[in-house]
């Protein structure tokens, strides 16, 4: 039989080289990393969402001795229903639910001589406890009345859809679904429209200052999504800056009258808290994401089509509707779903400015941090996963079409000057630019005055983070550390993973599986990921329990959270490299890591820098996942913004938010300098 492989016609089993083994091993290791940091936590969360705690009084029995020996056995369920202490259909509670045993005995007095005994016929589940200690056997336990008052019934653990039923029968909770969808839809329409106009100006006009506008439009990426909310509070909140400015210009009476007239008397200073505020803040922070996608779509549009239309003397609006819009349709759809996903999973904006208006992401936070109801947090997370997964899937499908368009790339379009149109576009972009910079300016202003609106003198008191809740300057230091660790480890991991899947030999199933794993993080909202980490890593039975509440778990979480976009950037860069580099180096008997180090990494350096900057910036600004995972020692700047704002220290929150902005902006500038320097230095070999 051993010679079968030698007979012509028999299937060949390729022998694997040392490189093949090493590459597969590494890929499996990175795949395992993704499984452990993503799939397993999600699984833990799903399991948690179907965990139910319910009293099991049917298993609990009492006997009473009033001096004449033990009386008849009393079943807790029967007695409880008679007394109205509990009902058969309403035993679900949380893990902390307790019922005093004495409630089954209305005439109980702890001073009486009566003796009680109690037993749990199914000692593994529920049963009772005394002074916080569960009794785990099924023998009678006897208590004096003095001790008996410290006996409580506790719930047992089972599984079922009870939590979901509870969720959907609670209007206060499930109305959030509707709220979240509404906010996401409105924000999507507004952002995509605004971004399309901006992208149109940048790609189809000859207006001035294009570079500056492009830069300004990217600014929101550099700040946490909490920041626009804070600015809006200053602008339109209880002490509205806008009102103050108007009053200062027109006089108080006139302004009061103006508001009354304008908004029919409904203007209250707290109006901005709620859907309007959330939408404005969401538009701010999703704008650059939409802009990038739509700009790409417009940039690859075929100039020949456009020029043909011009040659046919089609009027501008007609060209717009028949050529420009259809050409950009995939970009628009993709942008819409990306924005929708960002908004519906965002926690920062609604947290700061949502007021009483509940949305899903904040519900998770409230359930977990506020009420310690982890099961319900898990249920909301699962609910939030559904729209996020749908948006993600549609976006992936559309992106694929867009890529197909890209490869059939046509002549890029060169706009011609058209003064009135260019001016119009300039005016429009200026408006958007003022909105974006205005938000930042307000935050910066609020940060450096003593006490809005009473004392407008300059002061750096708000930067005295150490005297405030939130973690102080140490939190800022932690954020920078997190950013650096995430950038360094994340980039290494992501790039290596992408390299192994792109350039590995054979092992098709493994590589396809890895691609799937690498795409998953994008579909998982940050809040969901963070909560899932609690369930998974905070479990004492987990051998990785040790990283809980350390910097390590923050790094792991952030790397995983932002894995997909980094992975795609790396894959795009790797795909542009000649696929035969690996074949050549194998023929020259060079190990893969040598070619990786001497060719792949140097050639891909710009992409590698892009990935690390992306990871750094996001690590600095992210709140949603890490808000569940930081410990007092690892408080973060972004979380400090949240906590200071929560505690009413809005100005310091703004100050910290601006610190994040300045840090990111500096890093960004450094990055572009380094990239430019690198490209100059390597010009000789990059020249084509």
């Amino acid at each position, binding site marked *: 039989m051993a010679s079968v492989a030698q007979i*012509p016609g028999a299937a*060949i089993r390729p022998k694997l080289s040392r490189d093949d083994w090493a590459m597969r091993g590494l890929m499996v290791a990175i795949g395992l990393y993704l499984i452990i940091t993503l799939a397993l936590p999600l699984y833990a969360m799903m399991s948690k969402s179907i965990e139910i705690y319910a009293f099991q009084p049917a298993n609990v029995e009492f006997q009473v001795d009033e001096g004449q020996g033990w009386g008849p056995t009393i079943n807790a369920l029967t007695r409880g229903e008679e007394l109205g202490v509990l009902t058969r259909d309403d035993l679900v509670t949380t893990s902390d639910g307790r019922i005093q045993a004495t409630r089954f005995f209305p005439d109980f007095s702890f001073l009486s001589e009566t003796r009680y005994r109690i037993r749990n016929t199914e000692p593994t589940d529920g049963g009772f406890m005394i002074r916080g200690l569960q009794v785990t056997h099924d023998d009678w336990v006897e208590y004096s009345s003095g001790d008996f008052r410290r006996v409580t019934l506790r719930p047992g653990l089972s599984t079922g859809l009870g939590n979901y039923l509870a969720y959907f029968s609670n209007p206060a909770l499930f109305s959030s679904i509707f709220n979240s969808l509404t906010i996401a839809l409105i924000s999507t329409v507004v952002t995509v429209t605004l971004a399309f106009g901006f992208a149109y100006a940048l790609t189809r006009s000859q207006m001035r200052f294009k570079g500056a506008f492009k830069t300004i439009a990217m600014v929101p990426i550099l700040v946490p999504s909490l920041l626009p909310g804070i600015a809006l509070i200053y602008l339109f909140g209880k002490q509205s800056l806008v009102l103050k400015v108007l009053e200062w210009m027109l006089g108080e009476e006139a302004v009061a009258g103006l508001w009354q007239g304008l908004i029919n008397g409904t203007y209250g200073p707290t109006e901005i808290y709620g859907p309007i505020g959330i939408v404005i803040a969401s538009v701010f922070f999703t704008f650059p994401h939409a802009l990038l996608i739509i700009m790409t779509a417009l940039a690859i549009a075929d100039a020949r089509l456009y020029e043909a239309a011009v040659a046919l003397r089609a009027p501008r609006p007609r060209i717009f509707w028949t050529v420009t819009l259809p050409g950009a349709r995939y970009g628009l759809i993709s942008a819409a779903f990306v924005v929708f996903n960002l908004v519906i999973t965002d926690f920062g904006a609604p947290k700061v400015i949502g007021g009483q208006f509940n949305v899903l992401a904040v519900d998770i936070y409230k359930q977990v941090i506020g009420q310690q109801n982890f099961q319900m947090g898990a249920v909301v997370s699962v609910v939030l996963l559904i729209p996020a997964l749908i948006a993600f899937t549609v976006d992936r499908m559309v992106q694929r079409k867009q890529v197909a368009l890209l490869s059939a790339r046509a002549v890029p379009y060169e706009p011609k000057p058209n003064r009135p149109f260019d001016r119009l576009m300039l005016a429009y972009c200026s408006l958007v630019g003022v909105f974006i910079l205005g938000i930042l300016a307000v935050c910066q202003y609020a940060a450096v005055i003593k006490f809005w609106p009473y004392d407008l003198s300059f002061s750096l008191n708000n930067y005295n983070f150490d005297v405030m809740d939130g973690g102080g300057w140490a939190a800022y230091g932690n954020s920078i550390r997190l950013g650096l660790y995430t950038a360094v480890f994340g980039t290494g991991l992501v790039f290596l993973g992408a390299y192994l899947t792109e350039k590995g030999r054979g092992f098709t199933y493994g590589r396809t599986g890895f691609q799937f794993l690498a795409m998953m993080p994008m579909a998982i909202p940050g809040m969901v990921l963070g909560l899932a980490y609690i369930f998974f890593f905070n479990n004492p039975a987990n051998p990785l329990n040790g990283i809980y509440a350390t910097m390590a778990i923050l790094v792991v979480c952030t790397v995983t959270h932002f894995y997909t976009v980094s992975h795609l950037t790396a894959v795009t860069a790797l795909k542009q490299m000649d696929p035969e580099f690996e074949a050549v180096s*194998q023929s020259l008997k060079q190990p893969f890591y040598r070619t990786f180090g001497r060719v792949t990494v140097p050639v891909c350096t710009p992409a590698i820098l892009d990935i690390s900057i992306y990871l750094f910036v996001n690590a600095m600004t992210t709140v949603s996942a890490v808000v569940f995972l930081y410990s007092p020692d690892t408080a973060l700047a972004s979380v400090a913004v949240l906590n200071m704002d929560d505690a009413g220290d809005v100005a310091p929150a703004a100050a910290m938010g601006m610190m994040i902005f300045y840090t990111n902006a500096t890093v960004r500038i450094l990055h572009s300098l380094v990239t430019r320097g690198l490209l100059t230095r*390597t010009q000789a070999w*990059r020249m084509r």
Partner: protein
Amino acid sequence: MSIVQDIVTEDSRGEPVAAVAKTYLRIEGLSKMFGDFTALRNIDLEIYEGEFVCFLGPSGCGKTTLLRAIAGLDIQSSGRIEQAGQDISALPPAERDFGIVFQSYALFPNLTVAKNVAYGLENRKAPRDKIRARVAELLDLVGLADQGAKYPAQLSGGQQQRVALSRAIATSPGLLLLDEPLSALDAKVRVHLRHEIRALQQRLGVTTVMVTHDQEEALTMADRIVVMNQGVIEQVGPPLEIYRNPATAFVADFIGTMNFAAGTVEGPGQVRLGGVGLVCDTGELDAGTPVTVAIRPEDIDVQDVASGEENAFEAEIGDMEFLGSFFRAELTGEVIDGAGLRADMSINLVRRKGLKEGARVPVKLPRQRIRIYPESALRG
């Protein structure tokens, strides 16, 4: 026709090297499937030591697939490959002994020319100055002695091609694999490099396999040509042999220009073509078998044909197409009308005999030059 002249004059390559040399690469029963698609079907091939072999065939016929199987880059689904007596069928590329040049050259863009050439020499515990000397020698060999410090992007296509070649031979591999190494270059450079590569190969004596879809390239460079079609080998042989005696109608059609006409076997050595009875080799074919009669335009004799000669008849000259150094004329006339035969006539001949459209000339199809294929062959 320059190709033909090339071949005819270069006598040295007419005879198969096969007879004396020993087999270096042996391929047995090799097949390659991509899913349900069979890219290579049961390939058997022997390549001799020091030989220059070209895989020639239309696009998509499986040339690259076969080359990559030999390299181990895409291992065959079944079948055996033996190199220098060792079974390498399942070995990964790194454990085989070959150098390779791709159509894209795959030069490392961030390394200088010298570093590219040295790439396979480093990491082998060779002393540095030895490597430097070897690189200089190689660059000298391909005429790029002074270009070592440049980056690939600063070189012309032809120069890049030579760098790729010297990188591939730097480690003195036993087998050199070239996948369409010239197709990215413009015509002039290509012709020049053909000779250079061929000369280099002969100097080094390295067994070489080159993939090409350009028949001129294959005919001028190869010791032997492997003509492939739809995943199978149609014919293997020296260029002149392939050109003169195409084994199948596909080869006849693919290489050079060939007249095809429908005929019938009349008896042993007898074929009828329209109104003409031809004498030629009919092999085992029975009388009455419909066949395809094939003859190259340049093999049709128009000069000094005496009437009554074997396979001679009178024809009328139809359209004359001027192709630079000769005319290709359609032959019509009652006896062979519709057969669509075309004959080549030198300018000299045309001038001397005053040939022009409408003239009647005696022509002859020399019996050794006529090839007969079963009729179904062309359709298949």
